[in-house]
């Protein structure tokens, strides 16, 4: 492991520790029995098999949007539309499941593929706006996420709504739902698709020509342009692919045993979570399952803590925020990094001298 890589790991660990310490501080402030709360937060997910599989099931959407965002951000396109793509993906799979009534086996596959395509089209909107009008993709993607939310609610209310329950669709027919893998948990085959997507995302970004072009554009757009790379093509492919994966995640999530109807009347936040995942994974899709595990563990721990103590769930957002701040702070621990590099260089020099001598 090179010293830079070692340093990155060290910094991530320190950032997580600082974030946990801050959150312990907050817990001590707000709780009457802080130690009990902290113990549930840290060990809750391990206390029962069901809790642990809760972690696994909540990893799935995080891996999808995380991988999608890794691809989009690698091209240095700060497109935040994966949030909306995930939402639209869920809507499309609900529509397919409820309206097409395809035979079992075929229905989920069609639903998931169509939701992925819808996601791709959706994230392409800010990309096309950027190419055609040079409108900033960050700003336009923030706006269209709200459009996705209200559009989905509109479709649900006027075409899918089950009058018996109010603001939710009719139940998803059994022919379209994904089965549970392990009895009495909600873990579904989506986990395998998610892991495959993470690996394929890595292969695409780091082992193919277009992936290389994409990363080069992200590092230095002008240089990429001078070396003959079509920036328009790179932007479009990265955004289409990112949205495809996020939309697929939304489609799978809706058909999973976690939901039995389309009931998403507010944005779920997986697009924002994806940015945390992408930051933790250093834009490498291969590490998204690990980052997703961390985040899912934290969330599950916090929701168990909220159930068995007087600390509320929202503490997780503080932990996440602080982790991001310290991981992306380039100057944080930089003095230590310099020392580490200097030490390594000296050691290398010494070795060389010895060889010569």
């Amino acid at each position: 492991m090179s010293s830079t890589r070692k340093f990155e790991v060290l910094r991530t660990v320190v950032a997580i520790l600082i974030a946990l310490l801050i959150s312990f501080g907050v817990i001590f402030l707000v709780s009457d029995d802080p130690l009990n709360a902290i113990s549930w937060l840290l060990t809750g997910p391990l206390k029962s098999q069901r809790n642990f599989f809760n972690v696994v099931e909540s990893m799935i959407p995080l891996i999808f949007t995380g991988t999608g965002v890794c691809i989009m951000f690698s091209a240095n396109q700060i497109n935040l539309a994966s949030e909306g793509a995930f939402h639209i993906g869920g809507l499309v799979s609900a529509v397919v499941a409820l309206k097409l009534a395809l035979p079992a086996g075929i229905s989920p596959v069609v639903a998931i593929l169509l939701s992925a395509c819808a996601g791709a089209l959706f994230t392409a909107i800010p990309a096309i706006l950027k190419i055609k009008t040079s409108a900033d993709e960050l700003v336009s993607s923030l706006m269209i996420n709200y459009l996705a939310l209200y559009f989905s609610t509109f479709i649900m209310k006027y075409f899918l709504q089950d009058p018996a329950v109010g603001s939710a669709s009719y139940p998803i027919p059994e022919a379209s739902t994904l089965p549970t893998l392990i009895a009495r948990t909600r873990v579904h085959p989506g986990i395998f698709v998610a892991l495959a997507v993470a690996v394929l995302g890595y292969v695409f970004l780091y082992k193919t020509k277009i992936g290389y072009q994409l990363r080069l554009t992200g590092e230095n757009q002008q240089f990429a342009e001078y070396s003959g790379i079509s920036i328009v093509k790179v932007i479009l492919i990265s955004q289409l692919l990112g949205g495809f994966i996020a939309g697929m995640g939304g489609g799978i999530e809706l058909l999973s045993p976690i939901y039995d109807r389309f009931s998403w009347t507010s944005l779920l936040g997986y697009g924002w979570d994806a940015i945390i995942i992408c930051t933790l994974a250093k834009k490498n899709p291969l590490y998204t399952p690990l980052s997703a595990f961390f985040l899912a563990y934290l969330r599950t721990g916090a929701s168990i803590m909220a159930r068995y103590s007087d600390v509320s769930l929202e503490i997780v957002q503080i932990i996440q925020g602080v982790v991001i701040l310290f991981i992306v702070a380039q100057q944080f621990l930089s003095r230590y990094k310099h020392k580490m590099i200097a030490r390594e260089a000296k050691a290398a020099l010494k070795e060389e001298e010895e060889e010569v001598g």
Partner: protein
Amino acid sequence: MLQTIFSADFFAAILRATTPILFATLAAAVAAKCGIINMALEGMMLFSALFGVIFSSMTQSWLAGLLITMVLGGLIGLILAFFVLNLKTDEILAAIAINLVATGGTVLLMLAYSGDRGTSTSIQSVPAPALHIPFLQDIPVLGDLLSGHNLLVYLALIAVVVIHLFLYKTPLGLRIRAVGETKNAAESVGISSRRVQYIALTISGVLVSMGGFFMSGGYMSMFTKDMAAGRGYIALAASSMGGNTPIGGFLVSVLFGIAQAVANVMQLTTIPTEMIQMLPYLTTLVGLGIYSYSRMKKRQRLAGK
């Protein structure tokens, strides 16, 4: 419906919807002028909305509450500046982090302060008062239109002029613009870009905190969870659409305020609510596209000559 639209109430509704966006848009413009995209506006506004409720109830004075909120808003601006400028954190990711902390932190703080969950029902806050302008309020039509709005509505309008003068007529404003345009050139004539950016982000924080205070002490009279509801992001779009100038940002904010007010009136009609709720965001998106396109064409034309 037309009768509703051409009334003093409707005009007041536009002003009410415009004010928080306007404060945030000015905040975005000041930050953008020094070269920083301040996406943390969303979180700053949320924090300020809660601070406004807490501190006005603690001091039982809206003025003290507002002042403390402004100081704390400036402080969050400083924290953002510290991370972006000293620790070299990516400004977008730092903003996302602040927004996350705000979403969770406000809920926890409110819970710790009053035991309220979601809505600050048990906090006795003091909202900013309505301002009745002497003489003007007695003039028939004009009085109804221009007098009797919340104090912060007037402050927002005054802030447009003040920030315009500040950016274009003062030495510090010139420095901020110089740093935003070409940092190296500014440094070469002895301007400390870091100091200037620190000041700009602090001002940005103070401005948006006034918008946050208005949200919970004017627009509504309590704090509710996630009450900023994307206004910080809209402000970013509005500022960018207005060319990052105070006057341009003001015009776009008003456009947004109109879209919002029309949406509120249209809820009485049979048009689906969701379609109406999309209106402000759609307006912003289309406007942004048109503005960026015209600017791109202009740049190309200038480059061609």
